[in-house]
């Protein structure tokens, strides 16, 4: 029994070691802040570790942990009792760097920052993790059309953001 426990623990450690960096990047995009990402990823990994035996047998651990990170109810987020808003910080960088690519990249992040958590997660899963719609629907526990709607609306918001940015540049 003790031996089985050790094997499971080592198995989890190996899996987590290989995934933590990408999970932190994913968490950073979904939560919008380094601290929230660390808290969300740690909370998800703690849960995964505690249930590793069952998860590794019956689930896709990557999907399980992503779902936990996405959900706004992970305990780390609750304990912070606040919502990070990186918008102000990003806006400051737009004026500081006039390069078009940087401005467009900032427009993407500004658009993401303004999205509700679940919608932002759908965008990140679609365009950062390159998952297809059924996979995203399974992670977010929503219907596939809802995911498509989230992504479509996000792209529409980005189009508006870029148009607004373009108009602002012309005025200057």
């Amino acid at each position: 029994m003790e031996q089985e426990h050790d094997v499971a623990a080592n198995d989890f450690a190996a899996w987590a070691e290989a995934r933590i960096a990408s999970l932190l990047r994913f968490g950073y995009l979904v939560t919008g802040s380094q601290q929230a990402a660390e808290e969300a990823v740690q909370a998800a990994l703690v849960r995964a570790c505690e249930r590793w035996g069952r998860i590794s047998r019956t689930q896709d651990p990557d999907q399980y942990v992503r779902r936990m990170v996405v959900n706004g109810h992970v305990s780390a987020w609750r304990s912070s009792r606040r919502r990070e808003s990186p918008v102000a910080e990003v806006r400051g960088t737009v004026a500081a760097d006039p390069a078009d690519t940087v401005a467009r990249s900032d427009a993407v992040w500004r658009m993401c920052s303004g999205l509700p958590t679940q919608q932002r997660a759908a965008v990140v899963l679609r365009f950062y993790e390159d998952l297809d719609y059924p996979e995203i629907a399974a992670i977010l526990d929503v219907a596939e059309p809802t995911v498509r709607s989230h992504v479509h609306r996000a792209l529409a918001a980005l189009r508006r953001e870029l148009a607004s940015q373009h108009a602002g540049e012309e005025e200057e």
Partner: protein
Amino acid sequence: MEEHELEELVRGGLAERAGSADVHALGVGEVRRAVAQRRRRRWLVSAAAAAVVAVGAATAVVSTDGADDPPPVATEPTDGAAAPGWRTESWGGLTVEVPADWGYGGAPLSFAGDTSACPPAYVSGDWVSGWVGRPVLLSDVCARYPWLENSPQEDDPTPYVWLGGDVEVGTVTWPGGLVQETVEAEGERLTVASTDPDLRARIIASARPVEVCPASSATIPDGSSGMSDEGRGDPIDAVVCAYRLEEGAFRLTYARATTADVVDQAWSAQAEASAVGAPTACSREVRQYVSVQARYDDPFGAQPLVQRAVFRLGCTGEVDLGTDFFDHPNRLRTKLVRDGVVPWAVDPGIASVVSAPTDAQFLAGWLIGMQG
């Protein structure tokens, strides 16, 4: 810009932003330490719980996760109003008490063969220490119920109370440690879920018949100005009562004591709104109504004076004010306006149970907005 160009832009922007995350900030060692801490804490809580049971300390409170659980329970509820730190919540003929700082969500609701529930994260994204749900559709992206295996809901230890939810009577223990008890009380289904057995018992024991509003109504009441030649005496009481049409009758969905000032503000704001025209099919189709009412002493009469604004909500919004005693000898019915709603909709519970009419989406946020 073409769609695929936008998509590429998003890919590039996210990849660039992801690169600024500090990926060395967390290691497997921290995760293992956190797991060990949780195990120790659980062990200590279990030991404490066993000790409490052994000495029969009925009022002790055992918390499993510190900040996740509500404040200590009061030992005896008061009659009528809730005990300090608690508030009442009503549905149909049932009233229960819940911790005053709990938020709102949606209880399991069966629709088109599926049952779903809306934890607050799905509705507002807000953190809550606990929540109260009624079987009202709050969003089109709620969670399936029973919670899916390994879903976040299954693990979430946040306590909740469901009033009238589509839930079987009985007890369910979720993997996250939450124990969910469902009972019949005052003809309604009452579900209480918490890791704390004392909290569950305290809430279930608080179940009683609804007190401040009628449990149901066959018809929509008329509004009234509550004025007399001699004026009004002192206020006696004031209430906000919301109802939904279900199977031919209006069922109470929300009840809350308020102040006469709130009622007067709402009534007066609606009295200044433009009058509605002739009834239409749309205005006749009232699926919910909210009665905002204050009673006053009548210094020269035997019966209290009643000022009541009745918000008739369907595909359109109209407010029946009765007769304005001074200016309008005829019945006064006006179009729903924001200033008529805001005085009583400041309680966030309203936004979890009363839907804005289709033509009054300016009230979304105060009332449930359009979905889809």
